[in-house]
């Protein structure tokens, strides 16, 4: 995959993007690339900076430093061209509540040179959206589908979705993932979507960018993300200094602990090595991790301390 993506043009390229708020929160030096033809999941706990990053891409907030390029164009200098090629879905509707679905199209169609009435109409039918219904009469999930219909009806090359699945049931989420998969099938279009629901990532994402506390923790292929960590488990007495030293996050409970350890650091933990040639004497076990495990354990108090030390 790496070889293929190295040759792909970048749908989105973010270099050193930084945004500081007076509240003290800082989105710090975020750098990653999304090659054309792929889906990237943007993950992180609440308040990690996912929406801030999306708003930076859309120039809705001002960055303090760094560069953002969409399809090779600067997102500020070439704002109009960039946004012609962006389809955007937020977690809440941005349409006026008293507008009907029909009025939404009347308002949005003149905004885009490549607006396709037939495509929009097709998505309305597919999503079961009634043209006469007002936005405020639609459920949250249907409002999201309306934003998605708009985003998909002007030949956007990059979809940016902020928590698009949060208001959807399982079936609708499944349908959305199908749509996204089909959308990128031509190899020219890409999707960046933030989510809390890691099952969506398992299903659709090729890449993962993980942000926590405003800092980029990981960006790369999804498989590498899970493979680069292991979950070390042990009893309460087994939390030795060598485990603490390499763990990027620890969760303690009455009967033991879970420690998230980078795969390359496993060898540094003595408790994982057999001391006897005939029997496995190690008191600790190392297991594969899920994305949820990584998010959970990199946001514990120990993880925060580990990040500060790093």
């Amino acid at each position, binding site marked *: 995959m790496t070889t293929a993506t190295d040759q792909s043009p970048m749908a989105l390229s973010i270099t050193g993007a930084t945004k500081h708020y007076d509240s003290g929160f800082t989105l710090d030096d975020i750098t990653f690339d999304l090659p054309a033809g792929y889906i990237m999941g943007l993950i992180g706990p609440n308040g990690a900076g996912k929406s801030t990053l999306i708003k930076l891409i*859309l120039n809705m907030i001002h960055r303090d430093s760094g560069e953002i390029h969409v399809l090779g164009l600067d997102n500020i200098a070439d704002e109009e061209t960039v946004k012609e090629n962006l389809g955007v879905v937020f977690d809440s509707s*941005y349409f006026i509540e008293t*507008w009907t679905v029909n009025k939404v199209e009347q308002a949005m169609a003149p905004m885009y040179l490549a607006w396709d009435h037939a495509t929009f109409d097709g998505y309305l039918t597919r999503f079961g959206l009634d043209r006469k219904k007002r936005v405020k009469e639609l459920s949250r999930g249907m409002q999201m589908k309306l934003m998605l219909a708009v985003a998909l009806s002007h030949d956007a090359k990059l979809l940016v979705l902020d928590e698009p699945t949060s208001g959807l049931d399982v079936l609708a989420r499944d349908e959305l993932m199908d749509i996204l998969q089909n959308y990128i099938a031509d190899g020219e279009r890409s999707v960046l979507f933030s989510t809390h629901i890691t099952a969506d990532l398992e299903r659709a994402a090729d890449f993962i960018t993980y942000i926590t506390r405003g800092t980029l923790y990981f960006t790369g292929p999804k498989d590498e993300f899970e493979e680069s960590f292991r979950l070390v488990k042990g009893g309460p007495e087994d939390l030795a200094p060598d485990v603490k030293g390499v763990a990027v996050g620890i969760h303690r409970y009455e009967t033991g602990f879970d420690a998230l350890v980078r795969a390359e650091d496993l060898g540094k933990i003595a408790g994982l090595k057999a001391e006897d040639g005939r029997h496995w004497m190690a008191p600790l076990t190392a297991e594969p991790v899920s994305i949820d495990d990584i998010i959970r354990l990199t946001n514990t108090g120990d993880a925060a301390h580990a990040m500060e030390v790093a």
Partner: protein
Amino acid sequence: MMIGIRRAFALDVRRIASQGVFSILVLLIGFPAAIVLLGSISGGVSYMPGAAIGGVSAMLALLPLNAFTFEQQGHNNWMNGVVPVRRIHQVIGRYLVVGACMLILALEVAVCVGAGMVFESGKIQFSALAISVLTAVVMYALLESVMLPLCYRFTYQKALLTMMLICIGLGAAIAAVFALFAKLAPASIDALMSWMVSLAETMSGVGMFWPTLGGVVLAAVAAIVSLAVSSRIYHAKEF
């Protein structure tokens, strides 16, 4: 550039017409229609054009500001970050909406005052009609030039409150200055009054050209300064 401005203008018109075009049309047609109706029944009432101008001006002053109220509803301001329109074009588009409302105001005032003249005296006095239209337009431009930056800076409600406070403050300041002069130097008030009368006489002597030019220049300068301030505020804004 023009595409962006046109899109911004179209989007703001959609926002303003969100509650329906019919009610706006009824209000716009209502004032001239009322003048014609009442005039044809009673044969002319001198206060009618004034009342109509007040009503039309107030309505058209608030109409473009509705774009701000809709923006503040829910997350509609996010739409400004989604559509392919630069911020400067969004601001210019909104000022064009105000310009369009100003043209409608000029037309409405002309119809109302003209109809009032016909019912009152049977003929239209074009110079007086032009002065009425010009005065309404310049006052409108000045008012909106203050209101728009306030609406970009504050919420719509806060902007209205600030505008009210500005008007009250200005009125109070002028009244205080007059009261002070009346107490300390009564002759200066008389001198000011006689200067204003002589100015009015001079102006009536020079015809319509100079007052028109003065009014247009004043309105244009106010609009340009207002646009610059609004643009600066909006560029700094985050949503």
